[in-house]
């Protein structure tokens, strides 16, 4: 009788140990997948960079010169011109 109960207890313990092992493995796999998704490794970075490198080769390069802001405008004179009756020294016209 004692031997039978001991065998039953051992089988129960074996089943629990097996279930714990399977559960631990499942949890480890789940956590590993979660970690891989939230902290991408080297392979993911390389995949992201490759298309941007291709884009850099084909896009028109921006001017390297620091062109003044497009909002800049031709500046007005400090004093506007006035009408004159004097003989002109020169003519401003097309050339």
């Amino acid at each position, binding site marked *: 009788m004692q031997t039978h109960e001991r065998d039953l207890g051992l089988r129960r313990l074996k089943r629990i140990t097996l279930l714990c092992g399977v559960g631990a493995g499942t949890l480890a796999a789940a956590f590993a997948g979660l970690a891989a998704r939230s902290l991408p490794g080297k392979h993911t970075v390389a995949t992201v960079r490759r298309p941007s490198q291709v884009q850099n080769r084909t896009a*028109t*390069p*921006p*001017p*390297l*010169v*620091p*062109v*003044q*802001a*497009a909002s*800049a*405008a*031709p*500046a*007005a*004179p*400090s*004093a*506007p*011109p*006035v*009408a*004159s*009756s*004097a*003989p*002109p*020294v*020169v*003519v*401003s*016209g*097309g*050339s």
Partner: protein
Amino acid sequence: MTVSFPALGTTATLSVVDPERVTEARAALEHELSLVDAACSRFRGDSELARVNAASGRRVAIGAYLAEALHAALRAAAMTSGLVDPTVGRSLRLAGYDATFQLVRARDGATFRPQFERAAGWGSIELDDAQRTVRLPPGVELDLGATAKAFAADRAACAAADAAGCGVLVSLGGDIAVAGDGPAGGWPIGVGDDHAAGSDCCIAVETGGVATSSITVRRWRAGDAELHHVIDPRTGRSADTRWRTVTVAAASCLDANIAATAALLLDDAAPGWLAARALPARLVARDGTVERSTGWPEAA
């Protein structure tokens, strides 16, 4: 005292307040003219610009003068949203302006067949200030006609005034800059369609510059059509505009010239664009009617 002489395929005029200092002022002007011609001429095979245009996509080392002139051209493009674009060189050449204007005018244009190609756009120019190099994509050609003369006039006026120690006026084909203390009442300047012809009115300026853009000059025959040198970079064709001549006064000759050329290309939008920038301007329509922006004297 005023002297005039041929330069840059047009006329250079120098006026000085003190006639005894004209020699020094003229030497300074001629030095500036030699610099701009060697750097920016599209028709001199040995110019820096010709070398850049022929580089077929290679990076080219350039001198300080061309670097500054390119800055001025890029600034013009930025200020006008690309209307005044230095990459119209190829468009001009294909349209027939492919040699000095004396040669273009002299040839028989009846059999010439122009091609029209829009400009590549100023964003395609790679100017490296640190290395002082420039690179154009293959097929892109520069023309600095819209800015280089005015840029040179501003520089020459400052250099001549420094050398002479008195007020000077410099005109390069009607692109006018003044520097130093001018005559009482300002420099009297005529305004018209053609700098080499008579003027329609006269203004006086004390500072800055005055420039005129006109479609009545530098015209050539191309088959059945007549073309002119103000190219619209969006189409590669001579600008189709209601204005025949626009004159602008600004803080510098360069700014005046940029605004005058942009106004021609802006067509109906020109008066509003000029007014928004408080630029005194005189606009002559094709039918001869005159509009003046705020700041331009009513009597002129």
